[in-house]
């Protein structure tokens, strides 16, 4: 598998570390909603098809990437910096 890092270019998967499901939302730090925390920490939907997930380019620029990957074909449709995605998600919330 080859991941096109926005900073480093197309790189082999051995340079990356899988960092998990990027679809879950972390509750507000002070939240005491047990169910929400439990879902965030443990629940994964394991879908077939398109999935968004975090990959750390540990052997390259050490940025976390938000990768959209079809888990049945491994075809990658989008790669962006996770930081940028998180920032725009937060500004979306505020708007």
């Amino acid at each position, binding site marked *: 598998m080859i991941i096109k890092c926005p900073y480093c270019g197309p790189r*082999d998967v051995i340079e990356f570390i899988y960092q998990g499901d990027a679809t879950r939302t972390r509750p507000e730090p002070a939240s005491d909603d047990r169910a929400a*925390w439990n879902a965030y920490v*443990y629940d994964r939907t394991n879908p077939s098809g398109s999935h968004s997930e975090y990959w750390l380019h*540990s052997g390259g620029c050490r940025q976390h990437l938000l990768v959209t990957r079809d888990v049945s074909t*491994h075809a990658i449709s989008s790669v962006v910096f996770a*930081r940028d995605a998180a*920032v725009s998600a*937060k500004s979306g919330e505020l708007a």
Partner: protein
Amino acid sequence: MTSSRLSKGGRIDRSKSVRFTFDGKAYSGHPGDTLASALLANGITLFGRSFKYHRPRGVFAAGSDEPNALVTVFTGDVREPNVRTTELEIYDGLVTQSQNRFPSLEHDWMAVNQLAGPLFSAGFYYKTFMGPAIGPLRGTRFWMFCEKFIRRAAGLGKAGTAADPDRYERMNAFCDVLVVGSGPAGLIAAEAAATTGARVIIAEERPVAGGSLLASGELIDGRNPAVWAREKAAALANMPNVRFLTRTSVWGYYDGNVLTAVEHVSDYKPNRTKGQPRQRHWVVRTGRTVLATGAFERPIVFPGNDCPGVMLADAVRRFAIEYGVAAGNNVTLFTNNDSAYDAARALSQAGVNVTAIIDVRSDVSGTCRDIASVAGAELLLAHAVTGTHAGKTLSSITVQHFNAETGRVSGAPREIKTDCLGVSGGWSPAIHLASQAGGKPDWDEDLQAFLPPEPNQNWVTTGSAAGYMDTISVLSDAATKGSAKSRLVLPHVEAPMLDASPAPVFEIEPSIKSQKAFVDFQHDVTADDIRLAYREGFHSVEHLKRYTTLGMATDQGKTSNVPGLAIMADVRGITIPQAGTTRFRPPFTPVSLGAIAGERYGDLRPHRLTPMHDWHLANSARTYEAGLWHRPMIYGSHGETVEQAYTREARAVRQSVGIVDVSTLGKIDIQGPDAAEFLDRIYTNMFSTLPVGKARYGLMLREDGIAFDDGTTWRLAETQFLMTTTTANAGTVMQHLEFFSDCIWPDLRVHLTSVTDVWAGSAISGPKSRAVLEACVIGTKVDNVALPFMGIVHGKIDGIPVMICRLSFSGELAYEVYCGAGFGTKVWEALLAAGNPFDIMPYGLEALGTLRIEKGHVTGAEIDGRTTAHDLHLDWMLSKKKPYIGSAMIGREGLKDENRLSLVGLISMDNQSITGGSHIVTDPVPREPADSFGHVTAACYSPALGKYIALALVKHGTSMIGNRAFATDLLRDKHCPVEIVSHHMFDPEGSRMHG
């Protein structure tokens, strides 16, 4: 069967001879021969014994699809088993041996296995594993009893035990277009791509380009197609943007258009050029792949189809045209399609005598009839072969009337003398790589074969791999598949008009069962085995494959896949596409592990050494590996045991002063306006309140509330912290911080840098440690006011800038002295010199461990991924004023359960050592299984207490204090009475480190 060399023909060099041995006998062949063609030319037709039944087998195919004719190749002491004779190029001095026979190929004792046929039928291994339900051999014990006999009787070649002396290489290659195969399709596709300027790699598994053109009876531009192919290949290889790899088998297709291949660089040569590897492993990353992998002819299954002399029709043709070898004197052909007539034409042109063509179809075209009559072959339409007669090789076949519509055999059997029967059951596109890439293949009713799936990556198939079975359409397809912009002028092809679609006949089942009819030759799976599997309930192809082992041998079912599916579909009364097919997996052909490993063998781990490593070695340190790091265990004195050494070192720390290398601790530089806020969220305790110039011990949890790592973090400036982590977790903590900074809190302005290797660290501990510093540090005071507990100062030692923090892991008055890594030894030696008047003692990890066990400080042995802060009595570090990672989850009832294991100390009651990993039990007698209620995490002899002590995680830990128990370790034969005590075993008030 009397095979022999023809007087002319073949791409062999008849002017030279090559000497080799097979089963101890010397033979000769010519350069260009494979072992199979050379042995056939010498009249050898018996090549080996079969897997289960030890039946005599000959060569069946002429390429990488060969199931039968496998040999072991010997090079000195090294043996390589299961080498396909049809691919093995002979060279002077080649030593080969047939396989799976005892004591010799001609006289094989295990051939009696044939009489025990039912015993070895489908599912034999599964049934045997179950064993009888009762008795001494019940269950798998029966298997264990039988195994050594069965292992000897069944199997392929034996693996060697000698180390492989050969060298292998690895290559990474990048290209715009990778073309797999260099038959007519591959050559034209490569040319089309290369003329557009693309970077092209062509991989051909055989020694020469040409594929089907090498054994074709057609003409291209009026010339021999093999010559046309050779010139085309040479022209391509000369292009600067083309890399042409021969003897290179592409064996794997992975995601992202990454393909793997093995190039046989020199293993076909008698003497290797100095420095040449035996094989080279390629990982090719390509923009686009053109799969021009050709097609495999498949057999028709009929009784007695496995004796030497029965081969694929195309193999008979290839031996004649490519190698100038007649596989028999009187060749007969048995077919359900037109391609056998093309073979007959080519064979008779090459001077091979074709006496009869048996065709299951009731009618054939005029072209076919003409070919048969020109070749002088009797044409038997609506007939099928229903049996063979053979001793060690074929002497005659039985044919009967056959109705292709009903599949019924009828009429009187007729005997036809023949020593070689070429069989053609149609052609299956070689879709292996396309299937590996992931798609489900499509059944084509016309070709009665699976076509490649829809591409799911940037690849195309072309030529016969894509279902084009005549040269003209192959070439025009290849030109467009090679490049959409192709303007190639295609050559003129002269070929007979033949129809590629076979009659849907896969098996001939005679009315009276006589001989076994084999589907998978390499695993000895018969048509009846498939029917038996069905009767026993194994209906899906996946179950069928595993139960019968069909297609699971080293040839991966190249010849058996479609016939096996057809028989299964037939018993189930469904069509072949309904039965479905299994997905092909890498490797396409067997790959040696040496080639995959390349130069990567032996100890591949990096060795991490601290800046003071050489000093340690020069001062009699015994080191061991802690993760990747090499760290001093003890500094040995002559005649001392390890225990004596660490006891001496630890005692020196408590009595005067010791020094230990702590450079391995993980160190992360954290900077930014929000650095303090970031740490407040990461750590369970507060860091924003930490004054500049002070350090604080911190604890991190995972999101699920379990303890993760601990260490001290130093505030160097308002917006700068230096975090230290445990040695083992340095990498994972960095990753953890980066994840939260990148993905969760991108709004925090903080920057993380790993500085582990930037700093050298020396810890000096003991009542005299301050005196040592006072003697060598300039530029700062180090007294209790200037440098209080957890204080940080900057100064110089021996002219080197240092940063000193007063903190203690040993429980003594102690300091960590950090300097630039390049000056580590200089500062270390300066500290030693200053400590000389106090008999400063360098100490290793064993003494470090002893000191912390005495104090009850935790490390990775206790922060083991299962314990909570509460279990480790670190509740006092859990801030109630702020949320932090894990804070929402620590309150869960499972994490507060009273039955959880918690940290205690143990003291040995019989003055014997306690071993790490011992279980805590109440039973005074060692037994198995014991009712364990805890385990020992770390143990040592404590010089401070004069006793053997340990730390343990014990159920109801705190309330068990004062009780007695036993630390039991049945593996080491230990059962030690212990008293459970508080984990603070030495100086619980901490008066010494505050002193």
